[in-house]
């Protein structure tokens, strides 16, 4: 199986070294094309004017915030079910990226909302669910930071990620329910005219660019995490060499 060949971190690092330059190149090209299209090719909206261009950042970021959680959920399955050694590295390094994309979606959404809706924040169902997703990302990152042993922390975070993946649809459903109960249809929807191809194409190119950016950042973060763990292992070994009496007794000395 191909995925098991890369259970060896050294082999994985070699693969990253080969793939990463190509991926970075593609990502830069996609961003250049996407940004050019969204700033110069795409027309202004007849109601929203230039502010509609926020959409080309906002919508891909929102997609990525959900895709990143899916990647984390799959990696968590890899940790718990198949015990793949790099799965928890993948989950751990995806969390901050996902949080960053979610934050970006929230901020650009607020900046877009101010001229359009007249307020930075409304308790709309979609906004609220994204905010909850953001809190979950931060909670997961905190859980990673509280445990010294990366293997144990990885398993704990994997359980929480999977519980979150089961709960996210329920949260989404209940927030929709709550919102329709409290303030029905106060928020302007985008489904007036269907999206015109002139707007749709830049959006798709930007979505591809963002996805490539995610994979670039994810691979880089995984590489850094592997190196960080090696440094940790070397330090532990150095510490146990310095104190031969105590280190043999304790399997997990604190750093």
């Amino acid at each position, binding site marked *: 199986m191909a995925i098991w060949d890369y259970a060896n971190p050294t082999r994985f690092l070699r693969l990253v070294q080969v793939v990463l330059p190509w991926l970075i190149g593609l990502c830069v090209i996609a961003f250049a094309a996407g940004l050019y299209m969204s700033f110069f090719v795409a027309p202004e909206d007849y109601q929203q004017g230039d502010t509609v261009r926020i959409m080309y950042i906002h919508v891909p970021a929102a997609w990525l915030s959900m895709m990143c959680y899916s990647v984390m959920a799959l990696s968590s399955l890899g940790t*718990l079910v198949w015990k793949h050694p790099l799965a928890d590295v993948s989950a751990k390094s995806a969390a901050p990226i996902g949080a960053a994309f979610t934050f970006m979606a929230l901020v650009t959404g607020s900046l877009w909302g101010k001229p359009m809706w007249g307020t930075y924040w409304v308790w709309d169902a979609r906004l609220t669910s994204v905010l*909850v997703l953001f*809190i*979950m990302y*931060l*909670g997961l990152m*905190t*859980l990673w930071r*509280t*445990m010294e042993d990366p293997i*144990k922390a990885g*398993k*704990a975070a994997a*359980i*929480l990620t*999977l*519980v*979150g993946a*089961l*709960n996210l649809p*329920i*949260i989404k*459903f*209940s*927030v929709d*329910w*709550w919102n329709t*109960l409290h303030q029905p249809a106060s928020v302007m929807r985008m489904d007036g005219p269907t999206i015109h191809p002139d707007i749709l194409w830049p959006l798709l190119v930007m979505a591809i660019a963002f996805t490539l950016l995610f994979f670039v950042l994810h691979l880089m973060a995984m590489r850094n995490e592997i190196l960080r763990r090696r440094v940790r292992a070397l330090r532990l070994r150095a510490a146990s060499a310095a104190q031969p009496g105590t280190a043999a007794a304790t399997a997990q000395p604190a750093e």
Partner: protein
Amino acid sequence: MSSWAAVLFRRDLRLSVRVGGSALVGVLFFLAVVTVIPFGVGPDLNLLSRIGPAILWIGALLATLLGLDRLFQADREDGTLDLMLMAGRPLELLVLIKCLAHWVATGLPLVIAAPLLGIFLNLDPVATGAVTLTLLVGTPALTLIGAIGAALTVSLRRGGLLLAVLVIPLAIPVLIFGVSAADAAIHDPVPFLTPFLILCALSLIAAVIGPLAAAAALRFAGD
């Protein structure tokens, strides 16, 4: 209920009501939260009766969260948890029974105190009954979801705060349907039964997911 389960249930209950247990602190905290809210929003009785169900639910949520960090921690400190892990009983069932005992000791007092606190918030009898009923059905879900957080943070020295951060997003659906069922009983935009049945469903889902995930977390924390 088989005999070991009954023994475990009685043991946990007894420990939580005796010296060193925290069964009644939760109710005191509940009382304190409900008392402090009028200082924040003002003593207007109409406003208080409108947001009363929400206050009671948020108070119950916070009180439940505060008690949860001791759910497994005390057993881990004195080594009981390791014995339970090695006993060969299904760990999921064990967690479920511990949650049940914990709920009887800390959740049920909140439900019983709710009608009394409803008087402070100017709730009429129908609203009081509705809130009490939704709390009775909903607080077990809070305990069961919280058990996941308690199991994940069991090895941490001060896991209480992290536990609250991890559990609150997962508890949002329970809060939403608890409050909307209570609201539906008072001024009915929707029938009472719809959100109430969804709340029951959430409790049942939590009774499955909570013990499964908490047992997995405890196994990983143990080895």
